[in-house]
Structure formats: structure tokens, C-alpha cells
């Protein structure tokens, strides 16, 4: 079979959308190749574009679509997620989020009351994050052509040019920080799907991160890089940071903040919390000298009480992420491949 025939027959599977390696490859080979330009080629959560007003600050621009099922889950809903997700994509670029757009695709038959609840929640989240929703679009499709409500939001933010951090500033010896427990969003949504008969109090960590990030940036010039580890979890995000770089990353299993209930759910269902989605977490890479003061700033914020240093940037194993296990052994952590699937026995 020739290569073209294989591609001609190949179809999109859920794995292409789960934030792992298949999606990564598809975006690079199908979209980036065709859209290529200097801003897209930054390939970060937001594009940093010049400011037409020319006052020295840069504009950041990002977009994201939200298709979560169920629409409502402990700790949040699709509306809160649609605001926080886009706010966070701007915030991790060091930008102050200013304006959002929102586009709705709604399935025929969706109750207006449900839509109202979602809109209320978006308004709340926008108020908390200090952003304005300034434009939007609304489409209805026939029953069965969508699942209740899909939302797209785009966002614009402003960042002062002097901040200038990026992956190229990461050095061996830098510390890897996170602002609290991992895997809560992924575990909460799975439990809320109800097909596991799992009784749990796990809540999604869905929250706007611009507040805590601005506190962190205020205390340190040594912050090199930030990413919000959403789909694919911290394992996939750290792999994206290390990919093709001249440094590696070592994670310390003993330092990973993990709630007992999330841990228990993962044990029962056969999931690895390193690959579960987060919606209110930021992975930050900081110079070793500044790690203590950044950690303190994080812990002073309500979204960062459980902040920890979870790993270190290394000169060894360049391009790879390695976990130091509880027993002191080392093993590789790869990107998520496919969806995480339940185990057999």
C-alpha cells in the first residue's frame, strides 16, 4: 500500500482529539504546514502579535472550543470551562486577558433553561477573571448533529514586552513548579459521566489562572515558561516543553501533589493521573534562585495553597521527561498515546 492510499483511507478517530501525540502530529502535518506564518510558528497556547497601537506592549490572541460531556460536572460546567480555558491560554503567555468572543453551536431540542444556566456561569467566570465578553455568534443544528452545546471562545490579552519569556530561556538547574493537586478535572468529568458507578467527591479544578500568574510575575523576573496542563495532563505538557530541546526534565514522584480520592479512582479504573486533564493548574519553570519566592507567591494565592516544586530541568536525557519513582528508580514518561482506556483485569 502506498503512502497516499493509506492517507486517503485514514479517518479521524477520538485519539486525534485527545491532546496526545496523534493530535500533535496532525496539527503539525495538516494545519501548520498549510497555514505557516511567523506567528503560528511560535506554536504556543496564544499567538503573540505586535501591537498596532505601537505603545510597546504586545497583543496575545488565542482560541479554543469546548465540547465536554456532561455539560455540568462537580466544580464547573461547559460555560465556566469555556471562559477559564481561554483566559488561561492567555495568562500562561504572561498576558493580561482583556476581551473574549463566544460562539455557540446548539443542538435542536436543547432546553433554553440549560443554555441560560451555561450563560450565567460564563458571566460569573468572566467577572471573576476580569474579562469582557464583547462579541459572539449563535447557531442551531439539527438534532443528532451536535451534542447539546458546543462553545468556542477566542481571547485577546496584552502583555508588556519586557516580560519576554519563552522555551528558549529554559536552562538546566531550573525548577518545575505546579500550583496544586493534579488530575482533578479529568477525574471529576469521568466520575460525572456515571458509567463507572463511582461514588466520589472529586471536583474539577476549573478556575481562571490570571490572578495567581500575575502575582507570580510580580515577584520574579526568573520565570522562564508557563503552560496549563489540560488535555493529556502534566505528562504530555512536560513532553511538549522538552521535545527537541537541549535539556531534559526529571519529575519527582514523591513530590507530586495527588489527592487520595483521585489516586483511588485512578487505581480502580486503571488511569494514570499524570495523563489526566487539569483546568486550573499552571506548570511553571523558574530559575533555581527564584523558585522559593515564586513558590511563596503561589502559596499566598487561594489557587496555590498546595503548590510544590515537582521536578527539575536537567542537562541529561535531553528531549525526554523522566520520572524518579518512589523507590528511586528512573523511568521514562511519554506523551499520551490515544485515549486512556480502562483495563481488563
Amino acid at each position, binding site marked *: 500500500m502506498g503512502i497516499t492510499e493509506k492517507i486517503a483511507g485514514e479517518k479521524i478517530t477520538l485519539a486525534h482529539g485527545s491532546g496526545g501525540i496523534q493530535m500533535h502530529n496532525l496539527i503539525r502535518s495538516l494545519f501548520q504546514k498549510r497555514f505557516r506564518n511567523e506567528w503560528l510558528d511560535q506554536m504556543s497556547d496564544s499567538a503573540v502579535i505586535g501591537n498596532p497601537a505601537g505603545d510597546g506592549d504586545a497583543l496575545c490572541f488565542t482560541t479554543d472550543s469546548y465540547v465536554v460531556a456532561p455539560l455540568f460536572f462537580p466544580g464547573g460546567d461547559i460555560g465556566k470551562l469555556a471562559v477559564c480555558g481561554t483566559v488561561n491560554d492567555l495568562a500562561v503567555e504572561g498576558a493580561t486577558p482583556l476581551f473574549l468572543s463566544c460562539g455557540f453551536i446548539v443542538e435542536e431540542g436543547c432546553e433554553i433553561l440549560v443554555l441560560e444556566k451555561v450563560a450565567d456561569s460564563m458571566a460569573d467566570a468572566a467577572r471573576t477573571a476580569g474579562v469582557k465578553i464583547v462579541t459572539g455568534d449563535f447557531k442551531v443544528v439539527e438534532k443528532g448533529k451536535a451534542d447539546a452545546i458546543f462553545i468556542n471562545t477566542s481571547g485577546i490579552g496584552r502583555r508588556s514586552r519586557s516580560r519576554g519569556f519563552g522555551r528558549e530561556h529554559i536552562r538546566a538547574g531550573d525548577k518545575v513548579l505546579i500550583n496544586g493537586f493534579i488530575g482533578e478535572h479529568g477525574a471529576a468529568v469521568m466520575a460525572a459521566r456515571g458509567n463507572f458507578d463511582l461514588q466520589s467527591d472529586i471536583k474539577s479544578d476549573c478556575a481562571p489562572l490570571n490572578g495567581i500568574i500575575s502575582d507570580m510575575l510580580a515577584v520574579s523576573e526568573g520565570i522562564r515558561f508557563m503552560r496549563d496542563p489540560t488535555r493529556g495532563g502534566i505528562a504530555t505538557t512536560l513532553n511538549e516543553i522538552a521535545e527537541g530541546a537541549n535539556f531534559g526534565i526529571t519529575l519527582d514522584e514523591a513530590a507530586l501533589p495527588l489527592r487520595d480520592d483521585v*489516586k483511588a479512582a485512578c487505581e480502580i479504573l486503571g488511569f494514570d493521573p499524570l495523563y489526566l486533564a487539569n483546568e486550573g493548574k499552571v506548570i511553571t519553570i523558574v530559575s533555581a534562585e527564584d523558585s522559593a519566592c515564586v513558590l511563596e507567591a503561589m502559596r499566598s494565592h487561594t489557587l496555590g495553597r498546595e503548590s510544590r516544586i515537582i521536578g527539575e530541568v536537567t542537562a541529561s536525557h535531553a528531549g525526554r521527561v523522566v520520572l524518579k519513582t518512589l523507590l528511586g528508580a528512573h523511568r521514562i514518561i511519554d506523551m499520551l498515546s490515544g485515549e486512556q482506556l480502562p*483495563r481488563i483485569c
Partner: protein
Amino acid sequence: MKYLDEYRDPALAHRILDKIAEACGERSELAAIMEVCGTHTMSIARAGLRSLLGENLRLLSGPGCPVCVTPNDYLDRAIAIARQRDAIIATFGDMMKVPGSSSSLYQERGNGARIEMVYSPLDALKIAEQNPLNKVIFLGVGFETTAPTVAATLAKARADGVKNFFVLCGHKIVPPALFALVNDPELKLDGFLCPGHVSAIIGSRPYEFIARDYGLPCVIAGFEPLDILQGIWMILRQIIEKRGASVEIQYSRAVAAEGNPKAAAFMEKVFEPVDSIWRGLGKIPASGLAIKEEFGDWDAARVIQADVGETREPAGCICGMILRGVRLPMDCPLFRKTCTPENPVGACMVSSEGTCAAYYKYGNG
């Protein structure tokens, strides 16, 4: 976390590791121990145990991943049934990505087949009751751990008169495969780390022939790092003390010598032993389970016609030898090159308990 952290205690683990190193040091030759069960393989890789055990001890992965040993013709049949318009396939998630001769259930779902992932066969029965106009086929794959619940579900389907629920039975049992392994002249072993969950059902007696007739120590171990290390240490102690091989139970919090008679009785009521083909090991006498005739109306193999087509095994894949413990994943020319979790050639690369998947995901440690 209670009942979990105790079994991952680093200080205790290093004390056992020291003892293991000492025991290995007393022997001139290398010790080779097979972990039969795929859950052991994954747990060993996840904790990085191989790299801690030193060079005098080799852990070989055995044929204990049910998905991996399921031959292609079973998958091809499941896929052929999935393509039928009124069929809903219900399966454990592990089966989704396993490549058959020309497709996988995952690809079929992309093409529009109805395939539901479940955690229990009882959930599949529920799906049948909710969709009376469809045929719901549960893929019964697994060892003695999953077979009893499938047997119980079949008994319930009959009692409740559910007529649209079927099981495509690919169940296998472990002891006959171990018999085949100890008679494999290529394989040189010093002991078996026996599976914990399977033994919770069958107990320790079915392994006794290995100790008695072949002089190989067997230890039934749990799945946490400390369980596994203690299991290895118990095997080594049997070798060193030269007091004659026996079957010991490390995993005593879950396994009794007589197993679980109630679960075993359910299996006996519904299933009967048949010769069965294991990927890599070939046909092993009385190593599979078939649905008894009195439950024949719920047996997908008898009731549902399917155009299976020609079954092909993937060229160049050495899954078979890896499942027998005579080769390692790195010995395979396809490993990490053409065979990856995204584009698997053999089942061992995609099953969550597959040896190749463990080595790929966690490195060679």
C-alpha cells in the same frame, strides 16, 4: 492512602532489595524469574523495578496478558460482527486498539460501528435490555479473573430471559499455559511469580505440579512494588535454601489455598474446557473455555453468522516469542520503529498490560 502507601514504602523496599542482592550474590549463575501476569509486568515497569534489581537477576514477562494472547481470528470475528447493522459490541477497553488482520475495533467505531466500552459484563447485559431491537455481543476475553463474572452474567441473562445478549467467548485459563512453558526447551527458568488475581479464584493448588514435577519455586504475589519484591525474595530463598520447591502465597490478603470455590462453581456451570490457540504459544490442550450447550442460545459463536475472511498474522512481529519469554521487545526489529502505540503491529504494543507497551512507555527499566 491506606492499603496502598504501605505497599510502596521506599525504606522497606530497599531493605528487601538489599536481601535480594545478597541472595543473588551467593549464586554464580544468573537467576531468571518469569512474571506470568501482565499486571505484574506493568507494575514492575511503572515502579522501575528492573533497574533496581541488579544484573544477576532477570525478570521475564510471560503470556499473562489476555488481550495479547488472543489470536487474530477472534478479533477478526468480533470485527465482522461489529460491522453488522443491528450489532452493538460491548467490550473491555483494552480490546479497542488491538490490530486484527486488517482493522481494529477502534477503526470500526470511526467507521460507524456501535462499540461500547464497559467495566463489567453486567453493564453489557444492561445495554442489551435497553436496546431490545439490537444484538448486544460482549467480548469475553480474559483468564480466571474475568471468566466467573461473565459466567454469572450468562446465568443472569438466562434467568431474566434476555434474548438479545450474547458472549463471544475467548476465555483462557492459566495453568495449562504454564505446563506448555515449563516444557519449552528454549526457556530456562528458575521460578515463577504467579498471578495474584487469577490465584484469588483458582487458589494455589493448580501450580503444585510445577514445584513437584519440575522443581521450580512458585510464589503467588500481589501487584504493589513491595508485593513483587517480596515475591522475588521468596523465590530466591527457596532456591538458596535448597529445601525443595513449593508453591507459596505472598499475596495472602487476597488469596486462599483453595481459591474462591463459589466463583469456580459458576465457571464450571457455564463453561467447559476446550483446546485453545494462544498467540505465540500455539494450540494448548484444554486451555480455553467454551460456553456449554445449555447456554448455547447466548453463545455468539453458535448463533451469530459472520463473514470473517482470511486471517493473517502480522509479518515480522515477534509478539509470540516475547509472550513466551524467549525474546525481549528490544530484540524485535519493528519495536519503536514501525510498531508504536499509535501504529501497533502486534497486540503486545497496545494492550495496557502488554510487554511491548510496558517497555515502550516506561523505558527498558
